[in-house]
């Protein structure tokens, strides 16, 4: 068990260094940087001398005058010690402050979406499994297909048309009151209901075929007792493998939902940083996202073993 964890952590560290290295190399290859864009769009371009001075001072401030490998090591050290220096776009803000401020927003959004998705999907999956080939089954499978085919930001449009335009009960964007959460969370969760319900259905169908369920029916167990007490418990276990990656996918998927609903989460900063070539933020956010996703996968694997003693680690 400990060996398994150690091995996974080692791979994780290696993969993260690779991610950082790839991102860093790509950014070095970029033609033009943040300041070029700023200079082009400001009045500085008329005064060549002062702009050259500005660039010099600016490069010194961000350590860009150092050799490339030193820059990379400084970045990696910053990642470990949580001291990453200021952002290009917001010179008064340190990158770790931006993450600290915006990540909880994205996390809230993702966790709420997973919870809502589970609340909708588990009963739907159970119904579809218990009443196979009934109307419920077809409804569940239809929702599943549509949810798979249409991305969250398109679903968000239909929600907006319904709640903002037609019913006029919800604002089309913002992040200050609880009601701002409803549409983004619904859009994100509806796209994942599909996968969870489908998984729940097949897991439940399989459990219901087990001998111990037949025994429970034979002893005269009620629907409630057999399905909800005996079968549900075992058929929930495989669901963990879906929820982990889902949470990770949602946290990345919030990038568009955040920019659509003007939510000040990490995704929003990530998209802005990409558009403005704010490389400190872009790099940190990329490595951070990768870290979160890998950690999530590890937790899922460990939890799975904890809940199902039949699983063994190698």
């Amino acid at each position, binding site marked *: 068990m400990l060996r398994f964890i150690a091995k996974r952590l080692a791979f994780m560290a290696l993969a993260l260094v690779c991610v950082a290295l790839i991102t860093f190399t790509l950014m070095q290859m970029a033609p033009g940087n943040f300041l070029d864009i700023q200079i082009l769009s400001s009045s500085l371009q008329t005064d060549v001398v002062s702009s050259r001075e500005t660039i010099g001072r600016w490069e010194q401030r961000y350590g860009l005058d150092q050799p490339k490998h030193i820059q990379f090591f400084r970045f990696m050290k910053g990642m470990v010690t949580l001291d990453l220096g200021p952002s290009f776009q917001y010179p008064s803000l340190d990158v770790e402050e931006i993450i600290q401020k915006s990540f909880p927003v994205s996390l809230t959004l993702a966790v709420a979406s997973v919870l809502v998705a589970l609340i909708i999907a588990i009963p739907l999956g159970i119904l579809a499994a218990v009443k196979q080939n009934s109307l419920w089954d077809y409804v569940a499978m239809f929702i599943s297909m549509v949810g798979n085919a249409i991305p969250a930001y398109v679903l968000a449009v239909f929600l907006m048309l319904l709640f903002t335009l037609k019913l006029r009960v919800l604002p089309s964007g913002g992040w200050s009151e609880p009601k701002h959460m409803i549409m983004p969370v619904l859009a994100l969760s509806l796209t994942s209901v599909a996968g969870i319900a489908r998984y729940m259905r097949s897991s439940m169908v399989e459990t219901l075929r087990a001998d111990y369920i037949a025994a429970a029916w034979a002893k005269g167990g009620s629907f409630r007792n057999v399905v909800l007490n005996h079968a549900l418990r075992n058929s929930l276990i495989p669901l963990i493998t879906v929820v982990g990656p889902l949470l990770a996918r949602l946290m990345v998927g919030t990038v568009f939902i955040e920019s659509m609903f003007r939510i000040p989460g990490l995704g929003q900063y990530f998209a802005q940083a990409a558009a403005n070539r704010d490389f400190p933020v872009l790099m940190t956010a990329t490595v951070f996202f990768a870290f979160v*996703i890998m950690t999530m996968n590890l937790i899922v694997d460990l939890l799975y073993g904890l809940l199902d003693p039949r699983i063994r680690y190698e």
Partner: protein
Amino acid sequence: MAAVKEPLLTGSNAEREVVYAEGYWRRTWRKFSRNKLAVVGAVFVTLLILAAVFAPWIAPYAYDKVDYTATYQGPSASHIFGTDELGRDLLSRQLYSLRVALLVALGAESITLAVGSVVGAIAGYKGGLADNILMRITDIMFAFPSFLFNVVLVAVMGRGMITIFIAIGVTSWTGLARLVRAQVLALKSREYVEAGRAMGASTSDIILRYIMPQTLGPIIVTLAFGVPAAMMVESALSLIGMGVTPPMPSFGTLIASGQRYILSFPHLLIWPAASFAAILLSFTWLGDGLRDAFDPRD
């Protein structure tokens, strides 16, 4: 359907081989054509491709033709889907968005097919070091969320259609490579491949004429699902301002700008979103149909 033109073996076995090859495609076609959703998807996809190819002739206006006398118009006879804030025809802009989406999908899927099948075939057939290196790269690519990589690549290379399909192609070949590798691994020790080798077929012959034709089904299915996936990435990038450069439209930019007028001119949001959803659904139905048709079980 595509029958094997040259018998793979001579003598009485050759006939059996040809019959088998025809039977495979004919059976796939029979299964596919019985699936109503799949046929609807296929017909719709064909129409979409025609509309995209002939967009310059079909579109009633140029996609960037500004008309300040006709801004924010609702649907009418002269503008079926209405006009936007600059008086540009929404139908024409959607036709060009479709063209962009399909071009990006075509470019990205070409890269996926070329890199994925070559790398997968080599790794599966050669094994050893080549296989090991490939699998480690794939592992890291899987750990790295592909969308982040797409955004970083576009940020680095600058916006534009070519950038987008390179970015998608670079991240999406790993899935196909894994699939082809697994297929090749399973097929390379089959008896008919052994027979070919015994008869002196070269390595490239074994891979190209003996093994790859058998993996065609799964490859087609993967590519069919790759098309709507690539379209989604393209529109998502455009949505956050990292996609094609204006004035070239994309469903992502149409949705993003339509959202600004949701209360005053909702048609600018409704039509692009509904069209895009319908396009994605038809590709998914086609993909589902192909997957069921190529499924060797039942």
